[in-house]
Each structure stands twice: as C-alpha cells, then as structure tokens.
C-alpha cells in the first residue's frame, strides 16, 4: 500500500479522499491555490503545498507545479478527484511518466471515452444502445441544422470533449440555434481546448440513470448498481438517489450487464460510471462514460456498503477487488442533495461569500460531506458546492423523511446564499415523493417567487421580529467593535440598544 498520496483537487472531494487515506493509514498531501490557503482540505491534510494563483488553469490545472509538489513531498500516487485533471488523459500520462501511480483508469481508457463521438461509435460496436444523433463531430450552425431537421427538435448540442453537464446545451427550436452553437463552441474551446461538438436527439421526459462500475487490474469488473440523477437544473444534477425509483429489476440487471460490457470494451480499471438516458417506455441509451469518481458516489456507498474511494486506492495499489458481483446487494435507499452557494430565485446563479454561521445536520441516517467550515469563504473561482447532504433510510420514504429533517437542521448563514430552501421545497413535492419526475422537473415545477417563503402565523412572526431586532443589534455591535467585521455600517444605534445587546451577551455565558 502507498505511504503517501497527493490529491490534485480541492473542496469536499479532496476532504473525501483525505478521509479514505486516513482510514487506510496513508498520509495525504493537499495542493492549494492562493485563495485556498485556509480551505478545509488544507487544514485536514497531513501536508499541503501551494501550486499557484487562484485561476484553476494556473494552480489546480498546473501540471508542472502539481508534479513538483508530489516530488517534493515524496507522494507515491496522485488522486485527481472529479473535475480538474480527473478526465485528462495527458495529465494521467504525465503522472505515470514522472513515476507516480495514477489513481484512476488508464490514460488510454480516459481518452477513448473522453472523445464522446468516438465513444458513441465504440459503444455501438460493443452492442451498447446509443441515442440518435450526428454520426461524428460538427463545426457549423448549418451542419447542426441539417441533423436537427432529420431527427427533429429538441436536440442537445454537446462538446465532444465535455462531460458532467459541462459544455452541453438544449436547443428547443431553430430560433435559438445560432446563439447556442456559438456559446457551446466557445465554451468547449476555452474549457476543454477542443471546439468540436456533436448533436444528439433530446429525449422527451427523459430519466437520467447511471451505473457505477469498479474494475481492478486483474481483469475483474463488476457493477455496483444504479443511481438516478433526474433532478437537474441547467443540465446539472442537484438531487441523486439510489436505487432508481423508475427501473424494474429486469431493467436493473440488463443495465448492469451492459455497463460491465461497456467498461470492458475499453479495458477499464478503477471507478467509473456509465450514464444512460431512459425514455418513458424504459428504453435506455448510452450517453457517456465518466472515467472518474463521481460527485454522487455516496448514495451508492450508503446503499451497498462499499467504500468506493478506498477501493479506488486499493485497486491503484494493485489489489484485487475485495468483492465479487454476487457479494453486492442494495439495501434500503439513499438520497443526496447538493448544497450550493447559489440563489435559486435568480436562476440558480452562483452566490458565493463568507460563511459566518454553520451548523451541520446529524443523527440517524445522515451523512454530510462538506468542503467548508464556519468562517470559511466559498471563493468565486471554483464550483460553489458547500456540501453533499446524503440520507439513508430503510425505504425511499424514510430516506426522504430524514432528508427533510436534516435540511431543517442545516444552518448556513453569512454573505452567501444557498439552495437549502429550494431543497426543502423539493422534499415536499408530490411528484418527487411519488418518484414520478424527469430531468425537466425543476424547469416545470419551480417558481422561485411563489416558493420557499416561511408561512408564519402571528406568534411565529413576532418571534422572527424579535430575533431580527436582536440580531441586527448584535451585527451592529460586531461591526463597531471587531477588527474583522466584514459588513461596514454607519450605525445609528441608540445607547439603549447597546445596553440590550450587552445584556444579551451576558446571557450567552
């Protein structure tokens, strides 16, 4: 087993990998950018090395600095987490060329699955069903229009090098086509260094179901069952669960078998996910393979009892899979809510900032994988995820009961805004509770102006007013007396308010 691992990532996934390392008795090395000096992953790691300024391209995507950090600290292996370098074959190769172990699939497998167009062809050849769309990559608005006319709107335009909800846009009709093609092409070029894109038929009321696979370097490949990720906003997942409430046992068995076949087609090793879209008739189509650990891996961990990240590390160190297909079973149900610093009332736009007060939920069935702490800043430079709140229950309904309770306990207050109220609303939606939803659920059902407000009676309102007045006076006091107060104020407080808050302060003892 390795003695020391460098984690080329930040946020909750870096902390997640540190925890797996600690369980295995392995030392962890964090890397950080200028703005992340005091980030949680730096605090939690055994070692930490500065790799550059805030922009990811100069720090978390700085190959030279990261390999130098690994060398300097004596790390033997590198875990990329998700995002950043995780699906960049060139980096994986550089890691291996520099003599480190890459904790992930072979660069060749990343590459073959990373080219979405080539992957579609490969999968079709391996007998994996694929969606209708362009046979290869496209470059112009005209080419897109031609395909669209053949398969019909709506269509998805996807960057050939994209994935994970990045670099893909829905086109509803010919009117939006020009603007969207421009955006995708530009984004693809700047984000992935590859401006090519392709087109797929956009399924009506699709369900997004994916299968986790694990493969060792000794030829063993298993699937660890499915997740459903149909609750999405801006084509990004916000709520995931396992099992899927949609699929039948027969469909589950078939999807698992197809997923294993797909992974074996590229001699896959480590953790990976085959993403499928399913239509209302329970036909399913290969969408892409994510050649990394995924954000939503905890729902699988809670339902199967498998530690996917620990197993990734063991596989990279040459171990055989510690389980066979027949050892794996699903038990109960798990739901994950991604907690973001964003403003659901403003189209889910990022709303980062400093966290002043933070209380995590806990108790039976609750797991919260966070990347922050009270006093930490959610910086504007990276993905604004605060944590992944995951609950387990013996049934789907118990898991959701617990999620509702955990969301109620979760307190995040400060400069930032969060989607907690959005998730609280979600957990009361009849269609969600019945499992009858598709990837369009949020755009169909969410009305920011109508939802999320507290419906308070007079007594409740009185309590809110009292707290607001007390809190306002505390804030003024803090601003006036603390050198670190971040909310400057021209306080018009009267002396009696000072007296009151002074008393409140005494009460706190």
């Amino acid at each position, binding site marked *: 087993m390795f003695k020391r691992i460098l984690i080329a990532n930040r946020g909750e996934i870096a902390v997640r990998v540190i925890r797996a390392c600690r369980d295995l008795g392995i030392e962890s090395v964090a890397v950080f950018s200028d703005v992340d000096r005091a980030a949680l992953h730096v605090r939690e790691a055994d070692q930490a090395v500065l790799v550059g300024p805030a922009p990811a391209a100069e720090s978390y995507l700085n190959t030279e600095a990261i390999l130098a950090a690994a060398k300097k600290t004596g790390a033997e292996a590198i875990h990329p987490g998700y995002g950043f370098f995780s699906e960049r074959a060139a980096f994986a190769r550089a890691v291996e060329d520099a003599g480190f172990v890459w904790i992930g699939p072979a660069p060749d497998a990343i590459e073959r699955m990373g080219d979405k167009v080539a992957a579609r062809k490969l999968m079709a050849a391996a007998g994996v069903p694929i969606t209708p769309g362009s046979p290869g990559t496209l470059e112009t608005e005209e080419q897109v229009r031609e395909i669209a006319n053949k398969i019909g709107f709506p269509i998805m335009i996807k960057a050939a090098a994209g994935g994970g909800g990045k670099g893909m846009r829905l086109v509803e009709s010919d009117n939006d086509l020009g603007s969207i093609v421009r955006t995708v092409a530009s984004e693809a070029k700047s984000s992935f260094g590859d401006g090519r894109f392709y087109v797929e038929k956009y399924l009506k009321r699709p369900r997004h179901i994916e299968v986790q696979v694990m493969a060792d370097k000794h030829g063993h490949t298993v699937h660890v069952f499915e997740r459903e990720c149909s609750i999405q906003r801006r084509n990004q997942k916000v709520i995931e669960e396992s099992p899927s409430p949609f699929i039948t046992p027969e469909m589950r068995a078939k999807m698992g078998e197809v997923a294993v076949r797909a992974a074996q087609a590229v001699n896959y090793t480590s953790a990976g996910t085959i993403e499928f879209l399913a239509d209302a008739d329970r036909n399913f189509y290969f969408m892409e393979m994510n050649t990394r650990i995924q954000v939503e891996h905890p729902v699988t961990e809670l339902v199967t009892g498998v530690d996917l990240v620990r197993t990734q590390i063991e596989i990279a160190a040459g171990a055989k899979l510690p389980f066979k297909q027949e050892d794996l079973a699903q038990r109960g149900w798990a739901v994950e809510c991604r907690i973001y610093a964003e403003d659901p009332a403003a189209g889910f736009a990022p709303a980062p900032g400093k966290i002043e007060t933070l209380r995590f939920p806990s108790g039976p069935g609750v797991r919260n994988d966070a990347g922050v702490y009270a006093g930490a800043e959610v910086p504007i430079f990276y993905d604004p995820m605060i944590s992944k709140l995951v609950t387990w229950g013996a049934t789907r309904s118990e898991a959701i009961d617990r999620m509702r309770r955990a969301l109620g306990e979760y307190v995040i207050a400060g400069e930032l805004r969060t989607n907690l109220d959005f998730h609280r609303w979600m957990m009361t939606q009849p269609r969600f509770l019945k499992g009858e939803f598709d990837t369009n659920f949020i755009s169909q059902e969410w009305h920011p102006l109508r939802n999320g407000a507290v419906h308070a009676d007079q007594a409740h309102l009185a309590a809110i007013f009292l707290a*607001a007045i007390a809190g306002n006076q505390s804030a003024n006091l803090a601003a006036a007396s603390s050198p670190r107060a971040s909310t400057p104020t021209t306080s018009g407080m009267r002396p009696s308010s000072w007296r009151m808050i002074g008393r409140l302060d005494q*009460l706190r003892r």
Partner: protein
Amino acid sequence: MRYVATLEGTEHEVDLEELTPESFAISFGQDRFEADLRRVGPASFSVLLANRSFDFDVVRDGEEIVVTSRHGSTRLSLVDSARRFTRAGPKRELKGPAQIKAQMPGRIVNVLVKAGDQVKEGQGLVIVEAMKMENEVKTPKAGKVAEVKVVAGQTVEKGALMIVIE
C-alpha cells in the same frame, strides 16, 4: 421601542418592550406576545414564545436582514422608527438607457458587439464565464450599443457596468 418591519411588501409596526433582561413583549397588529430570548451563538437566538421554541440565525444581506430557522428563511427590512437607519433608498428606475451589468463576478470570454451596433431584443452581447459556466448575456431591449466597457479576457466584479444600450 418601535420598529417598522417590512416583509414581502407588507409593513408591520412592531413595539418591543423589555420586561426583564431576558424577556420581551412584542406587540403588532392586534396581538401582544411575551417571549424569552437567549443568544446561543454569535448570531443565533433561541426564542420561547407561548411554549413554542424557535431557533434563529440572523445575518444581514445588504439592506435586508435574513432570519433563518428550520422552517426556512425570511428576508425583511427593519427600521427603527426613531431613526430610519436601515431603510433602503428608493428603487432605481429601469427606464432610459439599459445598463448591462455583471450579475456575478466573472471573466469576459467574448464581446459580441461593438459601439454603434444596432441590436434587437434578446440578442447576445457578451459571453461571461463564472464558476466554470459560460453565459451569454442578452440585451433586454432593442437599440443601439452606446458604450462597451469590457474586453475579452478581462475579469469583472459583480455589478460592473459592461454595456450600455440606448
């Protein structure tokens, strides 16, 4: 002390009376409530009112106060009626030239128009990247591009003026 609390557009006149250092009477509308208040964290308050237990975290967000509990968040503005110290100014009017501002901090990926261009409503003006997402910013009205204040590659703060449409 009297306050005016504005919540979802409705103004409430609230009278607060200190009964003991830990208990307060709150009157508004027809009702009067007595409550026990404890500070349980830097900006956290436990309130017992008619046997009901409330647990609030309070933060300022600009001119507003956000009170959060397990029931959700409430945004309100609060004015000490003696001195209207937290009152926001009147809303700015949205007529006249359209000022296209950055809604969040980000990087300008591309500028699609130049000064003097005629644009129609909904036409793309700039592409801004924030949080690894690119967004095409469109004009809310047809008109002429009067000013272009940004160039590709530049980073912008939240609220920065990018384009003016006349």
